[in-house]
């Protein structure tokens, strides 16, 4: 075939395709690209969001992160360590029916994914004593210890088809590889589509790193049929080009346009946007565990951050509402605790963290620092929305009550390793609770540093309160929801009295789209094709 002939053929094919598919195809620009299609590779929001469209989980979360049935139609606890899940009549994208063996195989694979980054998916399965298929639709999981968050944690384990490897009868026996005789599937086998067989609303068509991910509707999907036949996700990490791409008509939906550009989208006819509060809280953590902290200097030679009055004074000195209005352009909500009000385990009426500079000055004087002290605020400048500016603003508020402040904002690849080495005294953090309930922030940021128990691993300030630890440990082994909620609230009350960290605000997520579409924003910040609907 000659070159011109080829070109004509290609063009004809293109236009034919474009004309037929236009109404049902959708292009979405992502701010950050998933690093793999493998649902058990890296515990990160873009990865989990992409995987959830291809591989479903036993338990799912709705837009507000409440638990809803996924591949399990219902679940209940038989006793403190036994859970029973009823499986749905679902089919994989290759037409094979879902069986309990597929679920058991999935658990085994999560334990045997050598390439996974820090085995975050294995952490769930490690808590299992046994998994039994009672009948073709019933699965029983026995846990080693009471594990109340099992259903929450299963919202991120994408279920695989057991046929992707050679195997004999599949039973939950990790020592015997659960009956798998072939080699465990590799990350690359998912990226190239070979093993990307799930029950989800979409099938993987192609995945080219840096260029885009193409999905195709799974017509055998058990649930509501998605509206879009072809979906293309394009990674555009920079906010400017993402917005111009939307305005130029290249994209139908874009993830997180810059807050400052929302006015522009509002004033341009033909485009819309949605702002949804997320569970991501932004805060500062105090270094309270050391008598001499590297970036704080007081006349009396002590570490003033060890005094709860100083911590409270610093919190009172900050005007959260103004930060939200001026710096965040209203695209955030001032925070009084570490997870938005109304979520499981949060306080129904948290004490208000009011702006009170006079009170702050008094408290500082009472604590023995009438002339303040010197403090460096450390933060990222490219991780959280407007993080550098927020730190500047907080520094100015602290200066107003007499604390001499310096700001050190740096790129995340420098910041996070330094923070882990405890080189900071007053350091910014951000946390998004993937379980949608209060225990995760407390577990990693507040309880005493005990990595062997998986607790306090982000407690860089080394705050330690035995009373709080005791209540918390009791909470995470209490299966009864009502009792657990009480215990979590108690732990949270103690945290807010001691303030080892001070919350600033919850970030909002923004999506913008062309006219004729609507987007249901999600608290977990997932960007999903099935959340895009034609406006009626």
């Amino acid at each position, binding site marked *: 075939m000659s070159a011109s002939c080829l070109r004509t053929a290609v063009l004809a094919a293109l236009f034919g395709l474009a004309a037929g598919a236009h109404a049902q195809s959708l292009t979405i620009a992502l701010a950050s690209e998933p690093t793999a299609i493998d649902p058990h590779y890296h515990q990160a929001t873009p990865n989990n969001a992409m995987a959830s469209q291809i591989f479903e989980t036993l338990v799912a979360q709705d837009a507000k992160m409440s638990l809803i049935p996924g591949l399990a139609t219902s679940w209940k606890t038989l006793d403190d360590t036994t859970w029973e899940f009823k499986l749905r009549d679902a089919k994989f994208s290759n037409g094979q029916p879902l069986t309990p063996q597929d679920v058991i195989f999935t658990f085994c694979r999560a334990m045997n994914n050598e390439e996974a980054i*820090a085995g975050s998916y294995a952490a769930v399965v490690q808590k299992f004593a046994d998994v039994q298929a009672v009948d073709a639709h019933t699965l029983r999981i026995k846990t080693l210890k009471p594990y109340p968050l099992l259903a929450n944690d299963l919202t991120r384990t994408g279920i695989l088809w057991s046929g992707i490897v050679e195997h004999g009868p599949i039973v939950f026996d990790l020592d015997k590889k659960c009956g798998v005789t072939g080699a465990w599937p590799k990350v690359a086998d998912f990226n190239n589509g070979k093993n990307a067989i799930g029950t989800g609303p979409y099938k993987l068509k192609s995945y080219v790193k840096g260029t885009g991910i193409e999905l195709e509707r799974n017509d055998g999907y058990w649930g509501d049929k998605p509206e879009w036949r072809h979906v293309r996700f394009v990674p555009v990490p920079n906010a400017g080009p993402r917005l111009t791409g939307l305005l130029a008509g290249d994209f139908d939906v874009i993830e997180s346009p810059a807050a400052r550009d929302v006015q522009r989208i509002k004033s341009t006819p033909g485009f819309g946007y949605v702002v949804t509060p997320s569970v991501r809280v932004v805060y500062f953590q105090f270094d309270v565990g050391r008598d001499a902290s590297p970036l704080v200097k007081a006349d009396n030679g002590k570490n003033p951050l060890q005094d709860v009055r100083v911590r409270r004074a610093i919190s009172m000195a900050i005007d959260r509402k103004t930060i939200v209005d001026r710096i965040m352009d209203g695209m955030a909500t001032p925070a009084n605790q570490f997870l938005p009000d109304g979520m499981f385990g949060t306080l129904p009426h948290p004490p208000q963290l009011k702006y009170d500079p006079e009170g702050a000055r008094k408290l500082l004087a009472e604590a023995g620092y009438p002339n303040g002290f010197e403090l460096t605020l450390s933060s990222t400048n490219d991780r959280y929305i407007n993080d550098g500016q927020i730190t500047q603003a907080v520094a100015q508020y602290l200066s107003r009550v007499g604390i001499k402040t310096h700001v050190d904002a740096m790129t995340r690849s420098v910041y996070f390793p330094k923070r882990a080495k405890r080189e900071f005294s007053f350091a910014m953090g951000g946390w998004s609770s993937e379980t949608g309930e209060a225990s995760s922030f407390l577990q990693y940021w507040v309880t005493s540093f005990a990595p062997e128990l998986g607790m306090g691993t982000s407690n860089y300030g080394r705050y330690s309160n035995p009373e709080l630890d005791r209540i918390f440990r009791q909470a995470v082994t209490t299966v009864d929801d009502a009792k657990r909620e009480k215990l979590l609230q108690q732990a949270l009350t103690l945290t807010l009295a001691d303030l080892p960290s001070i919350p600033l605000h919850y970030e909002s997520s923004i999506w913008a789209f062309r006219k004729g579409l609507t987007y249901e924003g999600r608290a977990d910040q997932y960007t999903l094709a099935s959340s895009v609907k034609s406006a009626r």
Partner: protein
Amino acid sequence: MVLFTLRRFIQSLFVLLAVSVVVFFAVYAVGDPIELLVSPEATMEARAATIARLGLDQPIWQQYFTFLWRALHGDLGTSFVHGIPAIELIVQRIPATFELVVVAITLTCVIGIPLGLVAGLYRDRPLGRGIMATSVLGFSLPNFWQGMMLILLFAVWLGWLPASGRGDTVSVLGVPLSILTADGWAHVAMPAVNLALANIALVLRLTATGVSEAQSQEYVKFARAKGVRPGRIVRRHILRNILIPVVTVVGMEFGSLIAYSTITETVFAWPGMGKLLIDSVYQLDRPVVVAYVMLVTLIFVIVNFIVDIMYAALDPRVQLVAPAQ
């Protein structure tokens, strides 16, 4: 010629070695990638297992020698973030970048050299002055801003061209190329112009200066006195003599556009290598950064080699022998 090639080859091995040392240790100095990769939710054993698997528990010099040993066996390491070989990650991106740069460099030569010639030959007339004055713009516009303006004009207001991304590709011998489709050309047009503008200005001014200098040379005066036709003087006597600096600059620009057209690739969301480098630096994905810089060094070495051969072709006085020490 053979000796020249051999010497060049040995020299470049040393250059590559030096570059690998500098980059390897520089990325190490920035920070520990584990803090960016592993979530605080991971258990202690899982974290330790990941550190061991990536080899980050070894002392840095040992990590370097492991890297060197594997590199000698053709393995430049596996990306920390993506879990696939670094070189594979880079090679996936090469066709997109190469295509973009070839179009940009072609534009540079096709527009820059003739305009420079005109500007040099007519440097005292309004035409020549006009060209020279306009070319200043090519330098002074910031790349990022210029790209956004192109997008606003041609994509948002006029709606003629797509704002970002790469168009449909056709596989030629397994290499996906977009410059064989109409959609591909529509996509490559703006980023290529954005890359080319500053280079056009550079080549234009270089040519113009060369031309006006050459015009007052004895050999040009002599040719003119001999009655050689003006067209032939320009082609045979002027152009050929001024091309050496132009070829050098175009060669260097070719290399640096391949490696570092990051800004243009970011503005137009072009899935090329420059974007990969930036992303990898942010994530401290050391294997990718090191492999990238080494590959780029190799490209520069090759480009320089080709430039040297072109010197010899353009100027018979140039001999391809390495100077004897």
